[in-house]
């Protein structure tokens, strides 16, 4: 029985120690002096937004999905991917504010950053024009850049207004490829599916959500007129000639016309400030397909 008494006392003391820890909250840093905020941005679309709002000089750290623009991604330290980010690495950049997307975020990371007095802005991104505008507004509000945000949003609307109506909705498909043997297709609700819609097309992979590997037969049945890829993937697969070696692709309309389009990943699927441009670019690609 003695043994259990020892255990019991030990557990109680640990619980008490934890409790006294939890009560101590570190106050947020007081920013009485007006200094430009030091920003860490942990998603491509967020980094791009900070840059487009004219605050790129305040960025002190980014993640590996921040690939645009080259001028800032080349020089800034990369902190890894959100699923494996090290809170101490973030803090070593001495940020005042950290922008991060809700998707894939670990709660402990937020706790640790807040404990160090850093403001953490968690943004729940929605893949739509409204979602992008909200994202811009949230960041602009924090960085006090309302004027720049308004002109960014106006630019998106202007680009979308230039999207031309097509004689028919073009049947498109997005393949997320990591080599010929490993191809997943973007279904309902994915960023690229939304962009296809904005550009006047229709996503043919419509009966499932997120990304799924597609069988050869399902690909032939879906019969897209155009197949989209990330630029890097298109290159790694060896270009249009090599793509038509893949039996399923060769049987589709897109395969017959070699209508394969590669676009930068962040540009096409990021839903950042360039979403209007991306929709317009895809719309122009659609116009080359079929009898426009």
């Amino acid at each position: 029985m003695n043994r259990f008494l020892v255990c019991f006392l030990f557990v109680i003391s640990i619980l008490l120690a934890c409790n006294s820890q939890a009560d101590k909250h570190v106050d947020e840093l007081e920013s009485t002096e007006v200094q430009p905020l030091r920003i860490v941005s942990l998603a491509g679309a967020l980094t791009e937004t900070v840059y487009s709002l004219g605050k790129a000089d305040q960025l002190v750290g980014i993640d590996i999905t921040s690939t645009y623009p080259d001028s800032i991604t080349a020089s800034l330290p990369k902190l890894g991917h959100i699923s494996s980010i090290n809170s101490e690495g973030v803090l070593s950049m001495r940020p005042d504010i950290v922008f991060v997307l809700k998707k894939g975020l670990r709660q402990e990371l937020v706790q640790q950053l807040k404990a160090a007095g850093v403001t953490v802005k968690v943004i729940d991104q929605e893949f739509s024009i409204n979602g992008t505008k909200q994202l811009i507004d949230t960041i602009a509000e924090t960085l006090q850049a309302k004027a720049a945000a308004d002109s960014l949003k106006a630019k998106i609307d202007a680009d979308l207004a230039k999207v031309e109506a097509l004689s028919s909705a073009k049947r498109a498909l997005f393949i997320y490829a990591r080599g010929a043997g490993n191809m997943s297709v973007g279904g309902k609700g994915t960023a690229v599916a939304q962009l296809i819609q904005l550009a006047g097309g229709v996503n043919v992979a419509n009966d499932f959500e997120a990304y799924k590997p597609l069988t050869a037969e399902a690909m032939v049945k879906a019969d897209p007129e155009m197949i989209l890829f990330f630029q890097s993937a298109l290159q790694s697969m060896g270009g249009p000639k090599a793509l038509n070696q893949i039996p399923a692709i060769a049987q589709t309309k897109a395969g017959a016309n070699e209508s394969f389009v590669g676009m930068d990943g962040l540009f096409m699927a990021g839903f950042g400030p360039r979403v209007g441009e991306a929709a317009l670019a895809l719309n122009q690609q659609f116009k080359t397909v079929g009898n426009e």
Partner: protein
Amino acid sequence: MSKRNLLLTFLFLAVLISLPASLAMGAFDLSFLEAAQIIWSKLSGFTDFQDQRLAAVIWQIRLPRVLLSLMVGASLAISGAALQGLFRNPLADPSIIGISMGAALSAAVVIVLADGVLAANYSMGGISFLAVATFFGALITTFLIFRIAKEGKQVNVMNMLLAGIAINAIAAAGVGLLTFLADNEELRTLTFWTLGSLGGATWLSVGVLAISTFFSLYFLLPLFKSFNALALGEQEAAYMGVNTEKLKLKVIIFSALAIGTGVAFCGMISFVGLVVPHIIRLIFGGDYRILLPTSALGGGLLLCWADNLARTAVIPAELPIGILTALFGAPVFLYLILNRKKLQVK
């Protein structure tokens, strides 16, 4: 001083040196003196340290993390040693009683399915839903295997091994299905989870781990006599007065508890439980009186230094720790196997 005490003293000193050394390492530049100052001011409570950010890095991030690495390493290694003793099988590790796969399956369910429905960020008093689910996933799988292996009042160890294989296969299929359903981000989170990370260390997780590590040490360490007897065979051990059924129950409960808690907070960290007891066994022989305590200390040391490397190798990013424990442990293990004749003390 006996060989055992000498070895224990040496390892204990190594742990004592590793603790401050680890505190002075990391992405955030600061000297050892500053680290010591911060810890002193926190412990004594009177001098409030000026730079809050510096204090937070040491007190909220680095210290919990180093403590967590020592405790998780210790509980993984001692549970590994105990399971190897119980199964009298050198390849026994946490996966054999279904902990790893059970935890992986519940982690996959939370990451892939509950992300939207239950909100994976939902927290229970500061502990994430993922951690709670993983812990129970691990324990339930272990319990299931234990039940299947039970014949009347006895637990058949062979049945347990076989049931473990079957249950593991089912859980692996479940993980495979969820991998298929996962989107890009979820897949990435899941992959990193299976490689383990100590990055989520908070004082709360340190507290929980302290309890489970204490329990496993407190109940497993005194079992050395039974394990030594068991090495002769289950019946022989029974003749020598070992209550083998009680032993099985104890080992399963406390190793599942220790490993389950570790996996819940840190994801899967492979190899520590398998390789540390083996290294010690190859050098110092199979006496569990030496093996159990040295495995605990050695496991703590291995994980602590593997984690130091994980967080400093690619500053400011971080390497998954599972890669490093395998990279550290496996070559040493291989070396020992190749030279076992020369090294064997006995």
